């Protein structure tokens, strides 16, 4: 198991480096002189010296590989560079906002799993045409319905009309857990529905496939009850494709966070991204994209490790 984990960690680190190079180069390819951008792009004439000094300030006078190295070195020290617009270093901006996004993502994930897994399992234990139809319907609609529609509807119904939950803002979990959860509830449900629908679609399909597997027949033949067969034998095997799909789910979460944070006025990394796009703030943009890539790579790693726990066939390095 250890060797397995090590192998995957090493390749993940490698992938991370590769991504950082790609992102860095991508940023440099974007048209427009960042120096001009920093000046706001409105100034038509600027004397050469000011330009040069700003260049030096931004470290743009060094060669590309040197810039890359200093960027990476900075990150290793926790310094993500400076924003082109605000006076805060990028790291500070990220620190301020990462909490909101993390809480959102974690809660959405939890809600998604809590809805999807019991529903899928119930569908497998008690096959029933109406239940089946309802569950596939939910999965289909949940995947297709745009996040902003869910968000707006929830705001109207639960937030404004029934006035049950706050519709915007953010309170840190560490400061006030209860209010934090309440504030995060509407946005998390909004995202969570999409997550639930995705998980359900995959899980239900693989449960149906597994149901006709030989070892399920063996389990029944041992005298186990239906629910024992589903929970102990079908579910673990069926969850493998679902776990593998975690990458898709994280992608959905990242993309969705942008919209949801906008709809619910939540000061997280998603809204930071939108702001930095508006301002053409490449310093922030660069860091955020790298973070996103890191999030995927880490998720991939966690998925592989989790699968290693669940499926013993993966752990066998060499065939016996």
């Amino acid at each position, binding site marked *: 198991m250890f060797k397995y984990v090590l192998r995957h960690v090493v390749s993940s680190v490698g992938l991370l480096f590769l991504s950082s190079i790609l992102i860095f180069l991508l940023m440099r390819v974007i048209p427009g002189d960042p120096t001009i951008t920093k000046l706001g792009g409105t100034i038509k004439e600027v004397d050469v010296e000011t330009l040069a000094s700003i260049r030096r300030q931004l470290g743009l006078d060094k060669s590309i590989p040197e810039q890359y190295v200093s960027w990476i070195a900075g990150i290793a020290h926790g310094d993500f560079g400076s924003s082109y617009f605000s006076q805060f270093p990028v790291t500070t901006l990220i620190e301020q906002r990462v909490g909101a996004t993390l809480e959102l993502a974690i809660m959405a994930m939890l809600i998604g799993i809590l809805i999807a897994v019991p529903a899928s399992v119930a569908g497998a234990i008690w096959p029933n045409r109406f239940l089946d139809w309802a569950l596939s319907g939910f999965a289909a609609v949940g995947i297709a319905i745009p996040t902003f529609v869910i968000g707006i509807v929830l705001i109207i119904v639960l937030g404004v009309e029934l006035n049950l939950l706050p519709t915007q803002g953010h309170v840190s979990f560490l400061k006030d857990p209860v209010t934090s959860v309440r504030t995060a509830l509407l946005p998390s449900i909004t995202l969570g529905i999409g997550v639930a629908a995705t998980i359900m679609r995959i899980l239900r399909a693989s449960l149906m496939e597994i149901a006709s597997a030989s070892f399920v027949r063996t*389990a029944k*033949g*041992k005298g186990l*009850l239906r629910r024992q067969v589903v929970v102990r*034998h079908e579910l673990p095997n069926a969850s493998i494709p679902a776990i593998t799909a975690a990458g898709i789910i994280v992608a959905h979460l990242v993309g969705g966070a942008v919209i949801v944070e906008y709809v619910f006025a939540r000061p997280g990394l998603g809204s930071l991204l939108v702001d930095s796009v508006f301002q053409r703030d490449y310093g922030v943009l660069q860091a955020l994209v790298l973070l996103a890539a890191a999030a995927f790579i880490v998720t991939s790693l966690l998925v592989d490790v989790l699968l290693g726990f669940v499926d013993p*066939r993966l752990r066998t390095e060499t065939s016996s």
Partner: protein
Amino acid sequence: MTVAATDRLTETVLAVRGLEVEIAVGHGASIRPVRGVSFEVRSGQRTGIVGESGSGKSLTAFSLMRLLPPRARIAAGDVYLRGREVSRLPESEMAGLRGGKISLIYQDPMSSLNPLQSVGYQVMEAISAHDRVGRREARDRAIELLRDVGLPQPERRVDDYPHEFSGGMRQRVVIAMAICANPDVLIADEPTTSLDVTTQARIMDMLAQIVAERQMGVILITHDLGLAASFCDDIHVMYAGRFVESGGAASVLQHPTHPYSEALLESICHLDRDVTTPIAAIGGQPPSPHELPSGCPFHPRCARAQDVCTSEAPGPVDVAGHMTECHFPIGGEGP
């Protein structure tokens, strides 16, 4: 219906009367792949059901265990397990009997075990499904069972996973799970089809020994006549959903009375035959349950068929000690 190989006064553990299985095929139509099967098994008796694929043998086995696929059901007949009728029992009670009083071993050892759990866990699960025991004791019993079925070094391998075992070993594990609660009846559905011949022989020997020790009634389902010959006390030949001939194994296989049984035997390669003799395959195909021929289902492929065979289904007659369903059985007088 059976002729016991010996005259042991042993108990009847399984009695099947007129079993019929129906499968819904959509648009309100249905087919009957099993059309009236009756037989008995005594404890310690080794019965064989032989036939080609599609004859209905596996479905018969599944219906005894009430493990039929979703669109299938037992349409008629009774199944008595030690005198108790079980074909109409509620599912929860049937679950208690499965593995406990009647067990099934399957065809495909490669995929019969849950790949995510250790073999020990799966055997323990079978044990605790029928007996309240603590983990420690369940584990010890599992190890002993694995030893009984011939798994080498069970203490070391009990925590290994199925993919770390060969096909033969996995089949032994499956057998261990099936016998752990000392069932009265053990059904073995093509247990060695996917194994090589040497392993096959060893497994069957092990099975024979276990069955003798525990006095279980065994039903061996197979298309392999040689296997049936060596293992079974008596045999039922199945064709198109019914038993066309039943009798002592040696007797049926040496002196078949039904044309189908005879044809089956003829189609086996004999080592002592002239190599230039073509293999006598039975012409035609086994009938599909969607389109059963009228009268005797074997008549389109039978050399002895006459007019009556196309219109009237033959009833069972006793010829030379075998039960046969034929109008013109071999060695009989015929109507």
